């Protein structure tokens, strides 16, 4: 019996040793898999959130571009009258915002011959925009239905046909032909 007991113990120890050795290999595989999976999940989430933030930025930019296009589409300026004062060499351009968007910001006014050859360009600070009551509109903006006139000075016109182009900050331009 003692002999058998010792023999049995040895057998058990061997068996456990075998089992233990086999499980060791399995544990390392599981751990590595868990680590790998965790890493993949973490990287996945971070990539996902980064992509979402990037797409959000892109969407915002696209949205701004679309809205800008729409606002530009809604812009419309009508020319009520253009008067050239030969004595003061100034041109008065009477405008109405007949579009469907506010804040039509007049940035540049171009004067050219009828064939398109430019005579003069007035930048933002080079001309004054006034309301019909004579008040200066400092920000050069006309809201819906507003009327105003642009005063362009130092123009020496001979008799003939001319073109005027008014450009806005949103990128629209409005042309009008007039005779002196």
């Amino acid at each position, binding site marked *: 019996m003692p002999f058998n007991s010792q023999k049995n113990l040895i057998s058990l120890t061997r068996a456990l040793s075998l089992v233990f050795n086999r499980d060791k290999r399995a544990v390392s595989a599981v751990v590595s898999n868990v680590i790998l999976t965790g890493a993949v999940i973490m990287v996945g989430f971070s990539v996902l959130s980064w992509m979402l933030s990037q797409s959000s930025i892109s969407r915002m930019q696209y949205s701004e571009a679309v809205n800008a296009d729409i606002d530009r589409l809604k812009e419309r300026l*009508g020319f*009520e009258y253009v008067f050239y004062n030969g004595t003061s060499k100034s041109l008065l351009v009477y405008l109405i915002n007949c579009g469907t968007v506010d804040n039509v910001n007049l940035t540049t006014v171009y004067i050219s011959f009828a064939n398109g050859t430019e005579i003069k360009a007035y930048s933002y600070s080079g001309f004054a925009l006034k309301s019909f009551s004579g008040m200066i509109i400092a920000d050069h903006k006309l809201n819906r239905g507003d009327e105003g006139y642009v005063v362009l000075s130092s123009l020496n016109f001979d008799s003939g046909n001319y073109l005027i182009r008014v450009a806005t900050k949103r990128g629209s331009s409005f042309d009008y032909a007039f005779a002196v």
Partner: protein
Amino acid sequence: MSQLSGDPALITPLLFKEKIKRLLCDKRGFSSIVGAIFAVLAMMSLFTTVFLWMISQNTFYNEEVKARNQLEIDRLNERIKASRTNYTIYTNGKISVTTELQNIGPLSVQLTTIWVYISNASCNVYNFTRFSNAYLKAGANSTFNVEVSVAGISSSSTYKFTSWLITGRGNVVPLEEYTGKILIASVAQGIGALQNNFEDFKYYNVTKQGSIYVLANYPNGASGYLVNQGGEGIAFQVLVTNLDENERTIVLLPSSVLFSMFPTTEQQIRAAFWYIVNVNGSGVISSTYTPVTLSFGVETRLYFASYKIITGGDLFSPSKASFTKTAPVNLALIGTIGGSPYGQNIPFVSIYINN
């Protein structure tokens, strides 16, 4: 093994089961699967949201483009006709612009501003008046009167006028003066500077109320072509318009008369006459006469009712036709045009008088 190789029908299912078993037991590929799932989910969510969002943006943009096109269509469909425009210069440097507006388009129109440009050899001025709340419904007619202040003009000078209206949609509507086509009609109908409105020829019976003479049934009266004489006498109402080519003012003197000739016998004709009178807004005939002024392009009602010329001490007295039945009528007008003597005989209408 020999059994498997001997039964080909069992090979495929067993291999498949084996493969599935291996796949499930093989932990080495798990992270790749999870990564792939994440990648697919990320891609799908991104593409779906971006795609849907872009569709919505495009729809939004297309709607705005449609709205913009509709605005352009509306702007092109705006049709306002402004005709019979008259200008009157006041002494205070204001100009009264009267015009007849007709919205012949399908849309209601907002009028924002009227512009007036005035010129002659020495003057070149313009101004505008803004409207706060001027609308014209589709199909509506309206007589439009507005005053525009223009510095440097005089009521005694002659000018050329140009005016136009600005609409809320940015259209420009020119105001057409009352000239051109009128002159063609005036030559045919009026033969001269005065045009007669044949459709608005009326008569009234003159009645006496105390010491004053009144037009019965004023202002309606009755058609002047068939006269049922009654009361103290007859008064005729004629609607004339000054269409002088040079736009001068005509002033009618008291000797202006509407007369008729009755062919009573083969050898004789008999006449009846009604001199010009003044009638106030209540239909009362003035006993004296103040010269009637006919401004260019303005329709003016003239009344003829007096038996004699109202001048000096001769006051109004009613006139009756002593003869009846059919008679041609002439309108003999005497006065001044632009300060110069003027006379015009309008071979008028025929009337039939019953007693």
